[in-house]
């Protein structure tokens, strides 16, 4: 995992896991978002090793 990967993980957390989320007229049009996020926290831990360098 390099620094670019760590940056990507930050992007994933902000773009996929945050932002206004409204049920109803506006909906998430992507599949598997929850599955992606389930793995995110663990990956962020790996990112910590990169940030120590």
């Amino acid at each position, binding site marked *: 995992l390099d620094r670019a990967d760590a*940056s*990507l993980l*930050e*992007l*994933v*957390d*902000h*773009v*996929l*896991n*945050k*932002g*206004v*989320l*409204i049920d*109803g*007229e*506006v*909906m*998430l*049009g*992507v599949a*598997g*978002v929850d599955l*992606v996020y389930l793995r995110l*926290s*663990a990956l*962020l*831990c790996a*990112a*910590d090793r990169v*940030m*120590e360098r």
Partner: protein
Amino acid sequence: MLYVYALTDRNVESTETIDCGGIFAVIREVKRAPQISESAMRRHDREVRRIAAGAGAILPMRFGSVAADGTALARMVGERRAELSLGLARVAGCVQMTLRVFGSRVASTRRSARVMEVKGGAEYLARRRAALAREASAAEIAPVLEAVAPLIRGQIVERHEVLGLVASVYHLVKGERVGAYDAAFGGAAPAIAPFRVAKSGPWPPYAFAAEVFS
């Protein structure tokens, strides 16, 4: 179908916008909802940042948000106008800084164990209240939080149960105070050992947008 990037307080130049009665939805017409990919997420973030630069206040939508058409979108915004207006007012002129707190879960567990050493019911409830309050904070990085406190307009703390990652802290900071925030963070970060903290940002206020309906 409309892909919705963000809601803003004003019409942003060089964007396709739908006026939903004073709240503006920045959209793009698409044939289908986007699939998750690194390039698609980076495109979304780039566009949100561009919109943020031209707006006084922005609530980014979550990646992949689509509406059937302008009528449906305007109805959705109209039904939630009060919350969205408050959300926009809160983030006006602000960016988000993100802190990831890393450390040993053993250290965190020891802290919790101390909390539960109680003698009776009343003391237990008092300790439990204190523990709940602490769970909504990030005591591990107290020196950092104290240093940046005068510079922030809002704070969200998320505790994590994952080995190594203790908490995520999201700060709302006026755009012109980011330099001072960075300096305050840099001065205090060494004081939080054995925990460590990684800072990223400025971001559009993604976490504070997520909080609008919570």
